[in-house]
C-alpha cells in the first residue's frame, strides 16, 4: 500500500515535477519560485510511514522486542523501496544531479515524518512534512536562487550544511523511535542511581 502511494506520486512526477509555482516567501523579493518536485518529494515519505499504522496500535505498543523489531524492519524495507522508486523515477525524469537533490529531500522528509509519527502517532505522521513544507518555502527562500543554510531541498547538491541537516533530521526521527518507554525509564533510572551514587561518595582526603 505504501509503495502504491509512492508509485502514484512517481506517476505524477513527470507532469507536475517541472512546473514552477510562484509562492509567497519571506525573502527579499517576497516571492519564491518552487518547482513541483520539491513538494511531491515530501509526499514520498507518507507511504512507508503511514503504512505502520495499525488499529491494534495500543495493544502492539505493549508487545515485546520481537514485534517492534519486525515493525521497524518493515518500515526500513518499505522506506528504502519507496525512496529508491522515487529516486529512480527522478533519475529518469530529471537526470543525475537533480535526482540527488530529490534523494536528499526524501532523507530529510523521512526524518520529519518519523519524528511526527513518534510524537503524534503513525497515523498523523503526515503532519510533520506538511507543516514543515510551508516553513521551508516561506522562510527558507532568501532571494532568487538563494536559500537558508537549513533548506535541505533546494540548496546546491555539493552543500555540506544541507546534507548534514537532512541526515540530522533522519537521525533525529529514527532515534526518536529507539526511545521507547522502557528504554526511557531504564535511562532515567540509570541516571538517577548514578546521581545518588555520586552524591553519596565520601569527600576526598585533603
Amino acid at each position, binding site marked *: 500500500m505504501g509503495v502504491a502511494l509512492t508509485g502514484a506520486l512517481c506517476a505524477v512526477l513527470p507532469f507536475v515535477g517541472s512546473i514552477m509555482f*510562484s509562492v509567497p516567501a*519571506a525573502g*527579499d523579493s*517576497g516571492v519564491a519560485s518552487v518547482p513541483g518536485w520539491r513538494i511531491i518529494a515530501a509526499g514520498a515519505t507518507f507511504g512507508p510511514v503511514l503504512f505502520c499504522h495499525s488499529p491494534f496500535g495500543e495493544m502492539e505498543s505493549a508487545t515485546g522486542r520481537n514485534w517492534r523489531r519486525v515493525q521497524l524492519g518493515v518500515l526500513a524495507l518499505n522506506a528504502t523501496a519507496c525512496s529508491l522508486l522515487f529516486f529512480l523515477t527522478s533519475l529518469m525524469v530529471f537526470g543525475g544531479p537533480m535526482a540527488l537533490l530529490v534523494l536528499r529531500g526524501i532523507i530529510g522528509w523521512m526524518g520529519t515524518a518519523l519524528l511526527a509519527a513518534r510524537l503524534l502517532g*503513525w497515523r498523523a505522521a*503526515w503532519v510533520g512534512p*506538511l507543516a514543515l513544507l510551508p516553513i521551508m518555502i516561506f522562510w527558507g527562500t532568501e532571494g532568487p536562487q538563494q536559500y537558508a543554510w537549513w533548506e535541505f531541498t533546494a540548496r546546491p547538491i555539493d552543500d555540506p550544511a544541507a546534507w548534514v541537516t537532512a541526515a540530522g533530521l533522519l537521525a533525529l526521527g529514527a532515534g526518536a523511535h529507539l526511545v521507547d518507554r522502557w528504554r526511557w525509564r531504564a535511562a532515567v533510572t540509570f541516571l538517577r542511581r548514578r546521581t545518588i551514587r555520586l552524591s553519596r561518595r565520601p569527600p576526598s582526603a585533603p
Partner: protein
Amino acid sequence: MLLIHVKRSPVRWIFPVALAFNLAMLFFRNRYWIGVWPETSAAAQMPAYLTSGLAAAAAAWSVGAPHRHGTVEQKLPLAVPRWRREVPPVATVLLYFVLISLIVQAIAFGLTLRTNPPGIELWPGYVVMGLTVICLAVAFGHVVGKALSGRFAAAVAGLAWFIVSMYLGSQWDFGVVSGPVYNELDTLTVMVRLLGAVALISLAVALPNFLARERAAVSRRTERRWLRPAVVVTVAAVVLCAVTAVLGSPVKGREKPAEVLCVGVRLKVCMWPEHQKYQSAVEDIVQRAERLPAVFVLPGRFDEYGVSYQMRVVDGVIDLTDRSGLPPYFYIPDGSTWALSGTVATEIMKVSLRYCAKAPFSKGEQVDLRANETEAWLEAFLAGGGRPDYHTNRSGEAAAAARRGEERANHGSEAEQFAWAGERVTEYNAASCL
C-alpha cells in the same frame, strides 16, 4: 450538535498552532504593508493561501472519523440523514480556519487603521479571496476524505491541495503574493468565486460515499431521497464554476485616479493617494534632486505606475499603448524608495548625458564605466545614502564601478560630491563617440 463538534474536534489543537503560524507569516515577512490598505489585506490573505493545505488535511481527517473510531456500521441505520451528520464536522473545520483568517485580517486591519490612509474600499476583496481558498480547501479535503477514508486520506488531501492551490494561485489568481495599489479586485468575480466555493462544499457533502463498504449498506430508498438535492447542488456548483471561468481573473488594473498626490516644484513626482505613507520619503528624494548642480537636467515630472499609464492585457496579449508624451513611471515595490531613486537617476542621466546616437553606442569602455559610476552615485545620493535594498546581476568592472559610486555617496560633503559629479558629466559629454 455543531457546538459539540467545535468543542471536541481535533482541529482545536491545530487552531492555536495554525494561528501562530499565520501571524508569524504576516509579521516575519516584511512590514511595508502597514499603512496601505490593499497591501494590508493582501498580506493578511497570504497566510491563508499557504496554510490551506492544513485545512484540506483537517477536513479529510474529520470526515474519516467514523472509520477511525470503527463506528461506520453503527451510523448506517441512523434515521438522521447522512448530510446532516456530515455538515457539523465540515462546518467545524471551516469555522476554525475562517476564524484564523479573520483574526489575522483584523490584526492587520487595526495596524493600518492607525494612519487610516485613503483606499479602504480596496481592502475587502482580498479578505474574500482568502476565505475562498479556505472554502475550496475544505471542499477538496472533504471529497478526498470520502474517497479514501483510510490512513492516507488526510496526507493525500493536504499534499494534493498544496499543489492544486499553488496552481490555482499562479494560473487563476486564487491567491496573490501582494496587493499593489495599481490593481484592484473585481467585486463580482471574487463574490462569485466565494459562492462557487461554498457550493462546492455543499456538493462535497451531498456526494454519496465512494467506499464500497458503505455504499452496499445504504438502501436504494435512502439513496433516492438524496438524488434531488444532490442534482440541484451539482448543477449549482457547475454553473458557478462556469461563471467563474467566464469572469476570469479578479485582479484588474485600476482606472487612472481622479486625484493624485504630487510633491515637488522643479521635479514633480505624482503617486497614488493610497501611498501617502511614502510622501515624506518621496519629498526627501525630490528635494535632493532639486539641489543637484546645473549640469544635471531634471526631466520635469515622474508618475507612479498606473497614475498616467498602465499596461493592459487584451485577450492575453500585452497592449503596448503609445506612451509618447507621458511622463516616465516608477514603482514603489515592497515599499522600496530605492526603486524611485533608481528611476529618477536613470531618467536624469538620460537627459543630462549626450549618448552616442549610432552603433556601437559607446564612448569607450572606461568612459562608459565612469558614467555607470556617476549614475550609481546619483541613485545612492537621491536615496539618502546607504546601500541598495535590491540585488543586480551586474558583475566584474560594472559591479565595481557601481560600488565605487555608491561609496562616494556615503563619503565627503555634498559640495565635494557635486563637484566630482559635475566634472564626470562634463567629461562624458566632451568625450567623442567611437
